[in-house]
């Protein structure tokens, strides 16, 4: 039951982009097209789950020596190293997947949303499986936000905005309205 709650909580109630305001940069940068937002979402889900799996033992190691306060530095190091490694291996072994995710993988290496998930896992005291569920949920939440917003942006493209609002201002206003709509989920868990 707790796993389902974690999933729903991640995707809707505490949506990583729209409620916690993490990962705004790719959210605005990659949501121009539905296709690229799906690619980005897949890359984020992948990286978040892997990062959680790899930072969990690292945190246990730090905990063992009583230096938990260094977790941010250690996590950044480990995640960056891991994503690089995945990229190198993927380039050789799975060129089609590398082409599909290639551009987005390095983009999210040090994304705050990825770091946010791994630190959130520790702060919430999740066990290993719960952490993985949280990572999956947060990745899904990111993908959902990106997909929703790419749809909104497609509509914006066809709107006749005043010249001053065209481009970034219109996008930011739309983002705030989408974010506002997710406030409706607050408090259901």
């Amino acid at each position, binding site marked *: 039951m707790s796993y389902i709650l974690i999933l729903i909580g991640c995707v809707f109630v505490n949506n990583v982009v729209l409620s916690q305001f993490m990962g705004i940069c790719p959210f605005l940068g990659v949501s121009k097209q539905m296709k690229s937002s799906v690619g980005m979402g897949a890359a984020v889900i992948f990286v978040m789950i892997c990062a959680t799996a790899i930072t969990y033992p690292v945190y246990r190691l730090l905990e063992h020596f009583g230096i938990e306060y260094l977790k941010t*530095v250690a996590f950044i*190091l480990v995640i960056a190293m891991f994503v690089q490694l995945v990229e190198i291996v993927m380039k050789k072994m799975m060129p089609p997947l590398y082409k599909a995710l290639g551009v987005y993988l390095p983009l999210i290496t040090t994304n705050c949303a990825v770091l946010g998930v791994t630190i959130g896992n520790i702060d919430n005291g999740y066990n290993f499986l719960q952490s993985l569920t949280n990572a999956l949920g947060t990745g899904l939440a990111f993908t959902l936000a990106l997909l929703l917003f790419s749809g909104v942006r497609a509509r914006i493209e066809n709107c006749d905005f005043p010249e001053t609002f065209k481009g970034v201002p219109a996008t930011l206003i739309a983002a705030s309205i989408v974010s506002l709509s997710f406030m409706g989920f607050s408090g259901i868990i």
Partner: protein
Amino acid sequence: MEYLIPLAIFAALGILAGVLLTVASKVFAVEVDERVDAIAEALPQANCGACGFSGCADYADAIVNKGAECNLCRPGGEAAAKKIAEIMGVEVTAAEPQVAFVRCSGDCSHTPHKYDFDGIQSCAACNRFYDGSKLCTSGCLGYGDCIKVCSQGAISIVDGIAVIDKAKCMGCGLCAKACPNGLIAVRRISQAVDICCSSRDVGRVTRSVCPNGCIGCKLCEKNCPSGAVTVQNNHAVIDYDKCTNCGKCAEVCRVHAIRSIMGEKVEVQ
């Protein structure tokens, strides 16, 4: 001791990461042909897709690995083709520069509208409603779908129809793909005669909606000394392989659907 342990752990983590990455980059190294990068640099990076590949990098890759032709880049033209041929070590005949041309002359004063269109301001959307808002079903709708795809800003709407600035046009043909009525043709820049109409309706119908429309009277076909003009589906078609730019067809055309731009000065970028 309380400083040493964190230091040792982080040093170990760093060294581990470094060793892992170095080993991985050696074991999983992918060989990249350096000619690909060189060609990509020689291309203009317009990423217009006129070559038929999905961008300059993809085209560079196709030249080296799939044996694509060296002279497909329209924006780069002769200069790029020569550079690429040099890198690949082959002889190349550069492609002649091309320009796009709008085959419609039914502007606001010539072709009336049958309804006011208030929907999404795009030709594709307008064209879904009763073949567009113009009385002529194949005329330029003037909502500028071509302008949106043009990377050079060469297209403008003048008096309700699209007009292409030949000096800015690089002949990528993206506008030709974007036009829902298929009005825009891409031809070699030296060709001076073109048909300013795309209507395939019978002459009577065309005449009733636009005084400039081709009515398929075959005067051009009869008068062309080189047999380059033929009338197909009520519409004159010029075979540019035979056309000698004599301008005879433009002279005899009573509705001015065929026009010669011989007299106009064409500045090539």
